[in-house]
């Protein structure tokens, strides 16, 4: 029976075409992922070489003034790109995965954006998550919207009903065949991805796969529920597409627009003006006042007193420091706002399975806003570490040649956020159970 149903399903032209289409576009998404991965790797490789040459060149130019040398020299921090990131590019195309900073004021450098073609950003990537989130549901809908209704419309349902001992079981089998073929396709694509993109099969991948399977099941549950209402095919098609439209476009877009409007970030612009003034006004102010503020922040440097000269690097870096110190309030506010945005969207997303799936996949791939915020925080730490390392050398005017400049390698930030099974699976499971339960109830009542 099951075999026959399967043959019947797979033999249809529409089925073959649909599955083939999904396989091809799924494969294209992997190609795009591969290109993204290579670009990220090239960037890191290039940055490593660049940093070495750049430091060496500048060290040879500015042999006598380490303060001047460090005015120019940039140090890079890389936000580690996991191979699984190729499946979910997320926000990694908008935000740079490499930060290069000098030890001067950080706030003026921290938010530098990546170079981008805005047309690409608007259209969005065709990564695997797009195929999973947008296209799988469409195929699921196409495969199941007319189950039962079609047979009723063509008059064959009565024959089926009299020939099979349990019609509900028959319906389940119809779904089973479809679920199996789409989960099969999903698994096939991910196996290709593992080989092709060298994705390690670890806990994150397991969660990724789990979410993907639950998401596919969710759409079958939606179809199961709608089919259980036993309306005609046209009604099913319209209603299922409307649900798709709501979950994929209208609700996410409405929520996003709401969040952006609720948590506006004028702090960003204020911050950038504030740090500019805070630093530049010090040029025209009493030097000792600036230094006193500097000592307040770093008491350990108190023994470096202001030299009796119009210009000194101690004073210069104290001024730069003030750019950051005096805009710290705005910087903190901006950070808090962005964290609020992230929290609010995650909280709402639990109730919208499409959003939840996207956000969870991004989290696994470390391509979400949270990862970006952690990276910014890490950049601050990285910058502070460099400052504390170089400040005494600058204030002592340590000889440039005695520093081992080869030691300053590109550093890497690894986002260690753990994935929580409950948080990832629970909302999807709940929706599945709810929809299947309601569908079951409808069928039991009506058949």
């Amino acid at each position, binding site marked *: 029976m099951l075999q026959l149903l399967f043959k019947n399903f797979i033999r249809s032209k529409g089925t073959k075409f649909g599955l083939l289409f999904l396989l091809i576009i799924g494969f294209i998404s992997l190609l*795009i992922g591969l*290109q993204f991965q290579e*670009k990220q790797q090239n960037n890191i490789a*290039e940055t490593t070489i*660049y940093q070495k040459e750049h430091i060496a060149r500048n060290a040879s*130019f500015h042999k006598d003034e380490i303060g001047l040398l460090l005015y*120019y020299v940039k140090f890079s921090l890389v936000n580690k790109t996991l191979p699984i990131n190729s499946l979910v590019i*997320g*926000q990694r195309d*908008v*935000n740079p995965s490499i930060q290069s900073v000098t030890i001067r004021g950080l706030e*003026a450098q921290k*938010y*530098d*954006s*990546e*170079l981008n*073609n*805005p*047309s*690409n*950003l608007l*259209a969005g990537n*065709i990564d695997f998550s*797009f195929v999973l989130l*947008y296209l799988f549901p469409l195929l699921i809908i196409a495969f199941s919207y*007319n189950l039962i209704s079609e047979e009723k419309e063509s008059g064959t349902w009565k024959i089926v009903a009299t020939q099979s001992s349990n019609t509900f079981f028959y319906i389940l089998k119809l779904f089973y065949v479809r679920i199996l073929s789409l989960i099969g396709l999903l698994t096939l694509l991910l196996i290709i991805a593992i080989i092709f993109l060298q994705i390690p099969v670890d806990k994150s991948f397991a969660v990724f796969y789990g979410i993907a399977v639950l998401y596919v099941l969710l759409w079958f549950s939606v179809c199961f529920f709608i089919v259980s209402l036993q309306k005609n*095919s*046209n009604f099913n*098609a*319209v209603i299922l*597409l409307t649900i798709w*439209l709501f979950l994929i476009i209208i609700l*996410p*877009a409405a*929520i*996003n*627009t709401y*969040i*952006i*409007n609720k948590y*506006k970030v*004028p702090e*960003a*612009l*204020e911050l*950038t*003006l504030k740090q500019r003034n805070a630093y*530049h006004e010090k040029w*025209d102010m009493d030097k000792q006042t600036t230094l006193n503020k500097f000592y307040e922040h770093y008491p350990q440097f108190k023994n470096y007193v202001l030299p009796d000269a*119009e*210009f000194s690097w101690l004073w210069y870096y104290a001024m730069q420091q003030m750019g950051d110190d005096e805009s710290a309030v705005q910087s903190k506010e901006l950070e808090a706002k962005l964290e609020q*945005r*992230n929290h609010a*969207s*995650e909280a709402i997303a639990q109730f919208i399975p499409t*959003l939840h799936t996207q956000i969870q996949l*991004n989290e696994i791939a470390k391509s*979400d*806003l949270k990862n970006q915020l952690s990276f910014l925080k890490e950049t601050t730490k990285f910058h502070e570490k460099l400052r504390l390392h170089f400040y005494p050398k600058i204030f002592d005017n340590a000889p440039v040649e005695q520093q081992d400049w080869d030691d300053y390698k590109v550093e890497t930030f690894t986002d260690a956020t753990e994935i929580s099974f409950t948080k990832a699976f629970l909302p999807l499971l709940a929706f599945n159970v709810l929809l299947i339960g309601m569908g079951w109830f409808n069928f039991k009542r009506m058949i």
Partner: protein
Amino acid sequence: MKLLHTELLIARHFKNSVFKNPAIYIITLFIGALLLFATFLGWDNYKSQNEASEKYQHESREDWLKNPDKNPHRMAHYGNFAFRKSTSLSVFEFGMEPFFGNAIFLEAHKQNTANFSEAGFSNSMLRFGEISIGMVLQILLPLLIFFIGFNAIAFERENGTLKLLLSQGISWKQLLFGKIFGIASVIMLLFIPTILVLVFVWLLLQNFTISADETFKMILFILFHFIYLMFFCVIAVLVSASSKTSKKALVSLIGIWLILTIILPRTSQAIGAYLYEAPSKVQFNSEIEQDILKQGDSHNPNDVHYKAIKDSLLRTYKVDSVQKLPFNYSGFIMTEGERISSKIYNDHLEKLLKIYDKQNSFSKAVSFLNPYIAMKNLSMGLSNTDYDSYIDFQKQAEIYRYDMAQKMNALQIKYISNKKPGAKEKPLTIGKEHWADVEEFHYEPKGISDVLKTEILSIISVSFWIIILFMLIRFAAKNLNAI
């Protein structure tokens, strides 16, 4: 009155039958609410974005002017900002705005990136899209048209009423046009109030003082959206007329909608982006730096290029050291450095923009097949939220930056003594009255003629579609049959 009498009768009849279905009220109400929500948020967003941008543009200007007497080169590093402002039509069409950087810091020696885009501060939710009037008109209404229209003729065929109609002397042409008008009249019940609200909000935003340019853009915005919606009415009726059953009509129409609005726009852009890979910032900057080093590095005391300049200056002025030159030598060198580095930067930028153009060319070409892309491009162009507007903003900012830096260098050459002050002497300064010589940055959005020039392809595509659809109606009227 005889004119189109039958068509209007059919249209009225169709409209009445649509309103017999209670679902249409729910949908209309819902879309109405969504339009209001979109208008409100678009307005709110526009106001806060423009107020912030104006406020900080103004504040940064005040800050600039407040600077005391100092060395002009200090001022070149103090720098200015370019804050992006939106046009009033962007309330209705966000376009690429969320992906645009909102502020560029403009200083000497360095072309900074446009920072603080909405997208950079969002999680992936933004990538699902945004709710704007444009989005409702361009994506949701076509689907609604299809949902209303799939039955138009296919249902009559299924019922057998189609034969009755045709045997009563109604021609196919009348029937097709009648149904098209019928669907259009339903959609106009949403479209016309939307446009009224739109125009009202738009007038309100500009305090009822409108420029010719803006008005022209607004009229075209409305006109193109109207034509665009009519396309979908025609497509719905044609597909319905050529389908055996209403189910087939519905499935085909849904397929067409998905391909036009969801699949093609993303795929065509993705193909472009895949085939023409653009460099990342790291690569872009390091290439520029290498080229500048090749040309000459003004920071390298032994650089050949700058040594040649120095020698020729010494020869021309017949002096033996740069301190004896009658003008400020380092100001002169910086002018030269700025000139070289900007030229190299602009060359690289041009190259980069060429790659972006190639990436976009796919989607532009597809706009011929896809009225959605043509409409989207037109609508973004008219609201100055398209790719070209953004590039234009960045270019205007760069021109301003270059002029500012060179003006400061000129002041240094002219007014700053060539003799460096000693270690304990006060630094050399010029009076603060010079700061006002640099004008405030003002971004001028592209005017209507430029917009139409860049969007010529979309306009041709729209005209092309009008012709094709008329031809299809004629063809259908001749070849369709009742069974």
